[in-house]
C-alpha cells in the first residue's frame, strides 16, 4: 500500500460512502467547486453533483440546522464547518437539537449525521483558526466526539461516523492533514467508534493523547526509548464515549499517567481522563497524574514564538515524561 496523507483518508471515506449510499450528502462552505478550503472534498462535486455536494450559504447554524432536517427526512448529511473556531454559531443546533432529538422524542426520531471540522493550531492560524473546542462537545450526552490521528483511522473512523445512527462531531487536526502520513487500507474498512488504539506498548508510563498530539506522543516515545524509557502510547481516538477500560488497563500496566492535549488546561479532555484514573485506578499509581496541555489563555497567538510556546510538541512531551518518572 502506498503511503498517503491523513486528508486523503478523509476524502476517500466520504467518496466511498457517497458511492455506496445515495442518502449521503455533503454540505458546507466552499465544499463544492472549490473542494473545501483544505481540499478535503476535492472532486466530490464532479462525481456526485451539486444536489448532493452543496455549497451552503455562509452560516454555521444554517448548515447544521438544515443538516438536522435532512437527517430527519431520510438523508445522511455530512456537514462541514470550515474551521472548528466557527462552530459556535451552530452550538445551539448541535447541543439543543441534534444531541437531544432521540432522547426528547422517546426514540421516535433520530438524526444520523456527521459534523466535520478542522481544529488545532501550529499553522499560524492565530486566535480564530487554531482552536481546539472538543471539550465543549464531550460534555453533551447524545453526541459522539471522534478525532483521528492517522490516515487509516481518518478513513475508518469517518466511515463509521457516517454509518452511525447518532450525531457524530468529527474533528480533524488541520496540521496533521498533510504532516501525518501512512498507509490507508483499500476498500470498505471501518474502525469502531468508542475504542482507543494502543499505539505502542510500554512499561514505565502511559501517554494518553489524540489527534496531532497522539502523533507527537509516538515521536516522544521513540526519543525516550533511546534513553531506555519504555513509554506506552494510547491514542484515545474517541472522546465521547471515552474508552475508560483501555485507560484503566494501561495504567494498571505502567503505573504512571501522562495526559497530553493541545486544548487549554482547565476542564479539557484531560480532566476527564485524570478523573477516570483517579476513580478507577488510584492505587495503581506510583506518581501523581500529569497533564501537559495548552495554557489557560483565550486562544493561540499568531506570532511564531508565542504559537510555538502554546503548542505541546514531541520534546515537551518527552520532557514531561522524564519529570514524571523522576517522581
Amino acid at each position, binding site marked *: 500500500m502506498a503511503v498517503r496523507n491523513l486528508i486523503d483518508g478523509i476524502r476517500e471515506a466520504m467518496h466511498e460512502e457517497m458511492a455506496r449510499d445515495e442518502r449521503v450528502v455533503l454540505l458546507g462552505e466552499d465544499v463544492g467547486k472549490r473542494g473545501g478550503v483544505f481540499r478535503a472534498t476535492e472532486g466530490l462535486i464532479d462525481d456526485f453533483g451539486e444536489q448532493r455536494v452543496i455549497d451552503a*450559504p455562509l452560516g454555521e447554524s*444554517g448548515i447544521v*440546522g438544515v443538516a*438536522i*432536517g435532512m437527517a430527519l*427526512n*431520510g438523508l445522511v448529511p455530512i456537514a462541514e464547518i470550515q474551521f472548528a473556531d466557527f462552530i459556535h454559531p451552530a452550538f445551539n443546533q448541535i447541543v*439543543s*437539537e441534534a444531541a437531544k432529538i432521540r432522547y*426528547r422524542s422517546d426514540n421516535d426520531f433520530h438524526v444520523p449525521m456527521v459534523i466535520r471540522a478542522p481544529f488545532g493550531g501550529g499553522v499560524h492560524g492565530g486566535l480564530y483558526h487554531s482552536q481546539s473546542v472538543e471539550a465543549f462537545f464531550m460534555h453533551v450526552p447524545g453526541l459522539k466526539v471522534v478525532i483521528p490521528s492517522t490516515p487509516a483511522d481518518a478513513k475508518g473512523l469517518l466511515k463509521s461516523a457516517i454509518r452511525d445512527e447518532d450525531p457524530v462531531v468529527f474533528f480533524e487536526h488541520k496540521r496533521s492533514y498533510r504532516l501525518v502520513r501512512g498507509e490507508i487500507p483499500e476498500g470498505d474498512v471501518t474502525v469502531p467508534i468508542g475504542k482507543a488504539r494502543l499505539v505502542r506498548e510500554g512499561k514505565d508510563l502511559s501517554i494518553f493523547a489524540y489527534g496531532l498530539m497522539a502523533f507527537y506522543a509516538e515521536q516522544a516515545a521513540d526519543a525516550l526509548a533511546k534513553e531506555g524509557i519504555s513509554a506506552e502510547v494510547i491514542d484515545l481516538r474517541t472522546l465521547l464515549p471515552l474508552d475508560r477500560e483501555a485507560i484503566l488497563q494501561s495504567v494498571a500496566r505502567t503505573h504512571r499517567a501522562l495526559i497530553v492535549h493541545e486544548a487549554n488546561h482547565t476542564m479539557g479532555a484531560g480532566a476527564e481522563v485524570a478523573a477516570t484514573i483517579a476513580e478507577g485506578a488510584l492505587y495503581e499509581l506510583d506518581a501523581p497524574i500529569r497533564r501537559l496541555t495548552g495554557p489557560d489563555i483565550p486562544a493561540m497567538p499568531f506570532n511564531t514564538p508565542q504559537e510555538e510556546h502554546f503548542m505541546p510538541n514531541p520534546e515537551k512531551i518527552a520532557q514531561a515524561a522524564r519529570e514524571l518518572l523522576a517522581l
Partner: protein
Amino acid sequence: MARTKESPKATSALGPAEVRKMYRNMLLARTIDERMWTLNRAGKAPFVIPCRGQEAAQVGWAAGLRPTDYFLPYYRDLGVMVTLGYTARQAFLSLLGKSEDVTSGGRQMPGHYGWEERHVITGSSPVTTQVLHAVGIAYASHLRGEDTVAAASLGEGSTSQGDFHEAMNWASIYKLPVLFVVENNGYAISSPQSKEMAVQDAAERALGYGMAGVTVDGTDFFACYEATLQAAERARRGDGPTLLEFKMYRLLPHSSDDDDRTYRSREEVEAWKDRDPILRMKNHVLEAGVMTAEEEGALRSEVQAEVDEAIAYAETAPYPPVEDMFTHVYAD
C-alpha cells in the same frame, strides 16, 4: 414576487360537514386549553402554555396541508395538533408528563410537540431552531422528487432570531417547498411588536429573500385556510417558499408562570375578546346554517365530556418508570 396584504376571500370549497369539523377542532383546542389552565391554578399541572386566541389560524393552516406533509409546530400550536388528530387524552397525558404521552413519553414539558405517525417533527424550547429543520426536510423531499411541503410555525418574536434569516435564505435560494408560518399574536412574552421589528407586518421581510409574503387576518379561519392552500400549491408547483403571517392576539399571558397585567392594560385585552376567533367561527356556522343553536350547544357538551374523560384518564395514568430515564440517549 407576490406581496399581498388583503385576506383571501372566503371562497372555501369546504362543505358543511368539514366546516363543522373545523369548528369542533377549534372548540376542542379551546376547551382543552381552558381546562389545562384550571388544573394549573388548582396546583395539579406545573406548566401550561396557552393557545387561546390563535385557534382559527392554527386549525386553518394545519387543515390547509396534507397528511403526507411535514409539520413543525411551535409550543403554542395545540390547535394544529388537534387538527392532526391529537386527542384530549393525549393532550392531558402530555400536560401531566405521563408515560403514554405520545410526544415524548413524559420527557418534555407540555407544548413541545412531536408525533412521528402524523409527520409532526419533535420540537424544543430554544425558539426558531425548527425553521431550519423544515428547510432540510424540504431539501430531502425535493431531492427525491416528492411533492410534500414542510411547514414550520413560530411566533413573531422568533423572527428576530438568526435561524429565521438563515432558513428563509436557504429556502429561497433553492426554491424549496417550505411554509414559514408566523403566528403574530402581538407579543413576545412582554415585548410588543413595536419592540421586535421596525416593520408593520412580519411578512414584509419576505421581499428581502425574493419569496412570497402574505399577511392574513388570523382570527378568520377561512382566510387562514385559503392562504395556506395557496402557499402550499405554490410550493408544490416548484415556485418556492412562502412567508405566511397570521395576525391575531394572545388572549392569555405567555404561560401559566407569566402575569400580563405587568405589561398590558385590561382594556386592551377586553377589546380583543370581541374578536375571539371561536366567537367568529360560531357566528359563521350559525349564520351560514351549518349548525343550529341546539346542535352547537350539543357540540360544546360533547367536547366538554371528552375533556372530562381525558382528564380523569390522564390523572390516573402511570408515570414512566424512573429507570426509563436512561434509555434512548443513543441507538440501542
